[in-house]
């Protein structure tokens, strides 16, 4: 939080270990250890992510079917993509799912973490309960929730058998709300991790801050809202990226719960990509769809990431 305060930030190059006043070391060797340690990161970024992305983009202009082939067809794949009802529905679903998922993950994750942070009894037990779904594979998470949400033998039938005959709860079989059915399962699986992140963040906050707030007589909720949450900004950013990347890549859960149904009402972009590549055997179409995904992610993430990490400003 207090990093790069402006007066003598380490990124000015002074951080290279011993710096001799008479004989300034060569630029390249300043921070040598830091640079050496960053080689894996640089290699990954350049070779895998940039290289892989460029490769994907190039092949999105081909009519590759089962194997990548360099037969260029211009924008045909993109034309087909944007004429596809399935793709449009996928994008719409991603938006709804993404926004709800972000909001609820944050609220639930933070509230649970804050409750666990009250020096309560059984903290270990509760934390394990909230976290365990994260250990289970998506395929089975999807299967179990598919059962629970099944109107014929899941929650709806149980509630009805208890006497509430008109109780309706069949999100997976109603095209209008199916995406929320998937959301329920996704939150079940993923909020535990968000909670852990928040908890780590809360535990990283100086104990004295809490004491100061108590001496100042600031109510608990105000302490959280005006002091603690702003201090947890780095953790929140991490959480946003983790949740958001999970959202963009959501695939298995949809396959296991609905296979994109009813009809194509719960299709998502990652599934569109996978289906195009490995079911339709139309790699070109899959690459075109992934290029669109990457492009939109890049448009949102790059400016944000640049502001967040690139500038010399401090976010203290």
């Amino acid at each position, binding site marked *: 939080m207090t990093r790069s305060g402006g007066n003598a930030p380490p990124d000015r190059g002074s951080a290279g270990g011993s710096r001799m006043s008479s004989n300034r070391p060569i630029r390249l060797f300043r921070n040598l250890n830091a640079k050496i340690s960053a080689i894996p990161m640089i290699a990954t970024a350049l070779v895998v992510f940039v290289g892989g992305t460029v490769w994907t983009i190039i092949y999105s202009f081909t009519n590759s079917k*089962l194997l990548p082939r360099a037969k260029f067809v211009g924008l045909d794949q993109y034309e087909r993509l944007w004429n596809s009802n399935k793709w449009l529905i996928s994008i719409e679903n991603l938006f709804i799912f993404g926004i709800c998922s972000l909001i609820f993950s944050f609220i639930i994750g933070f509230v649970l973490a804050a409750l666990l942070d009250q020096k309560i009894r059984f903290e270990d037990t509760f934390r394990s309960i909230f976290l365990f779904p994260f250990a289970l594979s998506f395929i089975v998470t999807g299967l179990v929730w598919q059962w629970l949400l099944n109107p014929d033998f899941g929650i709806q039938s149980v509630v009805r058998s208890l006497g509430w005959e008109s109780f309706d709860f069949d999100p997976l079989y109603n095209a209008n709300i199916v995406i929320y059915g998937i959301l329920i399962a996704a939150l079940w699986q993923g909020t535990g991790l968000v909670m852990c992140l928040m908890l780590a963040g809360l535990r990283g906050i100086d104990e004295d801050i809490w004491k100061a707030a108590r001496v100042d007589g600031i109510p608990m909720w105000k302490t959280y809202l005006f002091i603690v949450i702003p201090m947890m900004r780095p953790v929140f950013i991490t959480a946003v990226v983790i949740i958001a990347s999970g959202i963009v890549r959501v695939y298995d859960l949809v396959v296991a719960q609905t296979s994109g149904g009813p009809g194509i009402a719960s299709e998502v972009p990652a599934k569109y990509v996978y*289906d195009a590549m490995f*079911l339709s*055997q139309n790699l070109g*179409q899959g690459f075109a769809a992934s290029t669109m995904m990457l492009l939109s992610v890049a448009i949102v993430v790059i400016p944000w990431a640049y502001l967040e990490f690139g500038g010399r400003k401090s976010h203290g």
Partner: protein
Amino acid sequence: MRFHTRLLALAATVAMPLGAAQATELEVTHWWTSGGEAAAVAEFAKAFDATGNKWVDGAIAGGGGTARPVMISRITGGDPMGATQFNHGRQAEELIEAGLFVDLTELAEKENWKDVVNPPSLLDSCTLDGRIYCVPVNIHSPQWLWLSHKAFEDAGVPVPTNWDEYVAAVPALVEAGKVPLALGNQPWQSNLLFGAVQIAIGGIDLWKQVNLGKDAEAARSPEMAKVFQAMADAREMAEESNVQDWNQATNMVITGEAGGQIMGDWAQGEFQVANQVAGQDYSCLPGLGVHEYISTGGDAFYFPKLDDPEQTKAQLELASLMVSKPVQVAFNLKKGSLPIRGDVDLEAANDCMKKGLEILAAGRMLPSGDQVFSADTQTQFNDLMVEFMKDPSISAEDAQKRYADIVENAD
């Protein structure tokens, strides 16, 4: 046990002509992982091991969607398997063109597969430019209507013998609180249903025009409109069917919750496990009891090119084994599918399987969707059909129009 030993001995003799057996390991990738499937694969493995080679099993469940990335990665990564299951037909064309598979033509000519394999279309699917690249191992047919006797008894109507009777019985079924037609939510199930209805309602000629001739005009014809009307009926019948997997739907038929289900012959396994007897607890109507035709899809094995000549030899041995009579019998009995050669005897087959054999013997068969359309087109059909089946706001006319558009652009 004794039967098995004899089988192995037979298998060994079959393989002999190819030369002295060498202990060569061959990794075989396939997606047969459930109980019956695995037992069937074991027959291949046993026969192969009996030749002195070693079958290294690489089972991965999930069908082509899972297997394809594995196969292609392994092959392009320079670490191919010895043999791999694949849907034959159009799907592997590109890999063949890229010269990645072993040419089996010589072996096929030597063993005279052309005369042995029935229907011949199976071998055609393995053929590209006159060369043979794969071994068909079984026939699965999707056009079956499975009916629950209990459901119709409860509704107080006789068990239908064809589609029209079935549709007529719907009000009684609804009255009795039954789901008339069980249908899982996965896209391929809707398309399977369409395929069956198309043969039953549209008839063979129309089917051929559209599927073989890719005739978009035929797809827009009034005859085809009837097919879509029937699909709309089916949609209404399946409205209350809230299940995901095909076997959950089959289970509805078993318990009598649903009147019937249109599903492939593999559904039979579910009835058997539930101790149901064909003709007594359930009925099966191939071609929906209207046109008793079945399309003959199935599984096939391909052999990626390997550097080691010993392994190449083992690959040919395996290919030869898979087609051989005793292995065909043993395999298909376990798998519950039909053999690819007409000259074998399946006494142990049950009622429904026998029906299938009869149809096969009578030559009333059609190529499968995999054989006539590319995976891309198939997926488009899947998506259209599932959208139509789950969204009552799409009219039969609209669906037919979109269908015809896909046919027009099909490859």
